[in-house]
């Protein structure tokens, strides 16, 4: 962690992450959002920032700032949960395919390649339309589409590790395969997995935002993407309601940038070969 | 006037602990048509010295005191543009590791022909093409392979391509940096013969770098041995490898490390210890702590390179004492 801070890129990433995590975790506690608290009359919809509503109101007269806080939480939650699924499945499959090789590897890789080639967003839209619009489905769908990349990367690292000497040596000592994987392969693959995971979170958050914007988000859980969806379909742009569609977008930009910077910085630190100057 | 005159050259690299002199006060002379060998273990500075001639050192390196005079011109004073005009046209290089030194996406023919038209705009494409075919023939590569790519050649053939490329502008000096290290023994012999015959045929000067003294003994007119950034011994190969023998203890140990297949079995004595860490300040003779005939003053006084006759010079207190008749 110290090294991340020392690297300029990592430092800014960590700062961005800290701020967004604070917003996501702490703020909704003190400023909760009640979706049913709609505006009293027509004049209260899409109003600009004021003393009562620091970030103005949305198309139903509700407070945008509170939505923003809650939205942070949902966006972050979905992104992380989807990443957890993706990482566990992807790394697991990658390690097993790379370690056992042979037929298992062949089959797994054909499946992985299939999903790598299929364009992500169309598939997510199709899956979302078919399986419904609740948050669990969304998490599963996003996670399902991120694991192939992780699997590939982990597999090639496992393959090269496997060729090294300590594997046949450990086997000749009588270690079981699982034991070898646990004690030899996993520790060496970990840095790669961590670096990859951080970058995957960034991708999942973007995916959630896009899915929600398309209209496939969970209507009961307002995420930043959902806010942008509603701002779009309610014509907020045409009305110049910048307080509605700018903050969520900046929020997404900020958090994705944070994860991206930290992820790249981590990669640079654990793999010195990649490091250029600066 | 000698073709190449290097005097008291100092080349340093930046280092967290300060400057680190890879070449620390070295003299070297190469005459026209002379085939000189440069020997020494890895890290002794021979590649740095050689690449400083066409100024192909990596960024960050710094040529400090000393001079390099090529054909009378002080190259250390030349601008980058001036250097570019010299490169390949006057001084070319056969790099180590031909597979990586050749561009994988261009044909070998185009790579050989490339520098020809760069250095002489009056040459037409056809002329460059013909010239390349001549060169291919000179190094023993069939002309039809002009359109082939580097990965389609064996190691020995690739090295020949590198040699043909190095000769394309008919330079005055060719620097060959460990050209045969990665090849098998039979091919090594072929390439060495090729280098020697080309050198004679086109009256070039050649600087051949190798850590393998037997290689230099076969082909070179003169040999220079470096140790830890300094010149230990120089002289005609006939003297250094012949009956007169090497005079520097380091050279002697290097020579004894090669078993002679004709003689009886003997134990190979490696030289105990390691070369000094050049980022530290050096006092006295740098070989002193590994030398088994060191004198007391070797630890404190730096030995100068002294001419001991017959074109041979040594930087060793013991050797100069013997010469002076003191021992």
């Amino acid at each position, binding site marked *: 962690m110290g090294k991340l801070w020392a690297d300029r890129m990592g430092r800014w990433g960590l700062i961005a992450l800290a701020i967004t995590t604070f917003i996501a975790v702490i703020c909704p506690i003190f400023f909760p959002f009640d979706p049913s608290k709609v505006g009293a009359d027509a004049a209260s919809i899409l109003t600009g920032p004021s003393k009562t509503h620091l970030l103005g109101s949305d198309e139903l007269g509700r407070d945008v700032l509170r939505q923003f806080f809650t939205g942070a939480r949902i966006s972050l939650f979905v992104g992380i949960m989807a990443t957890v699924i993706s990482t566990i499945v992807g790394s697991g499959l990658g390690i097993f395919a790379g370690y056992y090789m042979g037929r298992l590897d062949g089959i797994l890789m054909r499946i992985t390649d*299939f999903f790598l*080639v*299929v*364009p992500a*967003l*169309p*598939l997510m*839209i*199709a*899956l*979302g*339309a*078919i*399986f*419904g619009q609740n948050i669990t489905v969304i998490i599963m769908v996003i996670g399902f589409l991120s694991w192939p990349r992780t699997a590939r990367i982990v597999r090639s690292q496992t393959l090269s590790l496997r060729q090294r000497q300590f594997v046949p040596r450990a086997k000749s000592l009588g270690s079981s395969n699982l034991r070898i994987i646990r004690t030899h392969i996993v520790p060496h693959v970990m840095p790669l997995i961590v670096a990859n995971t951080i970058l995957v979170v960034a991708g999942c958050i*973007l995916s959630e*935002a*896009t899915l929600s*914007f*398309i*209209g496939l988000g969970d209507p009961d859980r307002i995420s930043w*993407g959902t806010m*942008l969806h509603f701002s*779009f379909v309610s014509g907020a*742009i*045409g009305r*110049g309601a910048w307080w509605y*569609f*700018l903050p969520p*977008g900046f929020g*997404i*930009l900020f958090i*994705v940038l944070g994860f*991206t*910077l930290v992820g*790249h910085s981590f990669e640079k630190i654990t793999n010195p070969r990649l490091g*250029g*100057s*600066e | 006037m000698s073709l190449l005159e290097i005097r008291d050259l100092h080349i340093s690299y930046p280092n967290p602990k300060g400057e680190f002199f890879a070449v620390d006060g070295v003299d070297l002379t190469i005459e026209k048509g002379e085939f000189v060998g440069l020997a020494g273990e890895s890290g002794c500075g021979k590649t740095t010295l050689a690449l400083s001639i*066409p100024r*192909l050192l990596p960024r960050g390196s710094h040529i400090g005191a000393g001079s390099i005079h090529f054909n009378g011109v002080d190259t250390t004073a030349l601008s980058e543009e001036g*250097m*570019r*005009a*010299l*490169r*390949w046209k006057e001084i*070319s290089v056969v*790099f180590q*590791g031909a597979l*990586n*030194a*050749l*561009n*994988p*996406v*261009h044909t070998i023919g185009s790579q050989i022909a*490339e520098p020809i038209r760069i250095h002489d705009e009056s040459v037409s494409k056809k002329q460059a093409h013909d010239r390349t075919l001549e060169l291919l023939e000179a190094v023993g590569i069939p002309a039809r392979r002009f359109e082939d*790519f580097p*990965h389609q050649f064996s190691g020995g053939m690739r090295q020949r391509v590198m040699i043909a490329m190095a000769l394309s502008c008919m330079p005055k000096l060719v620097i060959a940096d460990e050209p045969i290290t990665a090849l098998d023994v039979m091919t090594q012999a072929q390439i060495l013969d090729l280098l020697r015959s080309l050198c004679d045929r086109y009256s070039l000067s050649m600087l051949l770098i190798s850590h393998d003294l037997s290689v230099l003994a076969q082909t070179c007119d003169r040999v220079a041995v470096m140790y830890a950034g300094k010149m230990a011994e120089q002289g005609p190969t006939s003297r250094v490898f012949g009956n007169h023998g090497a005079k520097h203890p380091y050279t002697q140990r290097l020579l004894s490390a090669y078993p002679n297949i004709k003689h009886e079995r003997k134990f190979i004595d490696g030289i105990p210890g390691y070369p000094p860490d050049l980022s530290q300040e050096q006092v006295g003779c740098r070989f002193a702590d590994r030398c088994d005939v060191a004198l007391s003053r070797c630890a404190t006084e730096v030995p100068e390179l002294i001419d001991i006759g017959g074109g041979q010079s040594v930087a060793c207190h013991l050797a100069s004492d013997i010469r002076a008749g003191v021992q």
Partner: protein
Amino acid sequence: MPFLLRRFFTLLSSIFAIVTFNFFLFHIIPGDPIRLIARTQRLNAEAIAKMRASFGLDGSILSQYFRYLSKLVHGDLGYSFSFKENVSGLVGRALGNTLLLLTASTLIVVILGIAIGVFAGSRQGKKSDTATVISSLILWSMPTFWVGMLLVFTFGVWVGGLPISGISTANAVYSNGFEYFMDISRHLILPTVTLAIVDIAFFIIITRTALIDVMTEDYMLTARGKGLGRRAIVWRHGFRNAMLPVLTASALYISALVGGAIQVEVVFSWPGMGLLMYNSVLARDYPVLEASFLLTTVAVLVANFAADLLYRVLDPRVAVSK
């Protein structure tokens, strides 16, 4: 050329796999579309059965599958009940519009992106390089649709000046073909720029990294040793090699390119495959959704195939034949 044939066969089998996957995906729909229609239109059992038959939704799954395949081969993609026309016509037009958008933006992205990437890579460590990398990272972190929204706001509401919706002005009458062309071009500007802004970041970073990697190769020293000038070294030797990993990475990026196009089409109401998908999701018009998903995926597969071939042509180390 046996290799070419083999690769083409792989493409065909992938397409077949996609078709099968597509079919089974859309036929485990929890909500039966026929029942939905029946409810809204109050049909009796006989009418429902007839409708089911006409949509090919009767019989076992396997028989449905084979019927689906035979229809596909004949180019019959079904009928859309929300658009009230044959899906093949819908999809055909949409595909053309999407290709127009993608071609325009890809041209900009590739040319500018590579140029900037080489520029940054050859100046590694200097201020211009760092600035380029930071801007690229920021651009990459922005959701494409949001960039679109910002541009819609700027050029549609705030500053104005450029059309922000559709492919041509509604109800316009053109005196000649050129005017039509110009109208489409004006409508093409903002969507193209939106797509380009985000995608270019990827290209810049990829090209920069590739060039930096290549600069450390030995043959770059050889090039320098030959007395080549800086430009020749970077472009004739460096770039030519750096293009190989860039091409490989681009092939993997095609999927993201398509995703971006969908978002842009939704924001700018550009009548392409993306907007079609969006509308079909809203209307729960599964035949259209199924067909557009299928076609988009097949298009990506073909593009990957083309990229693979291109790579083999450019890299002499990888043989095209045998």
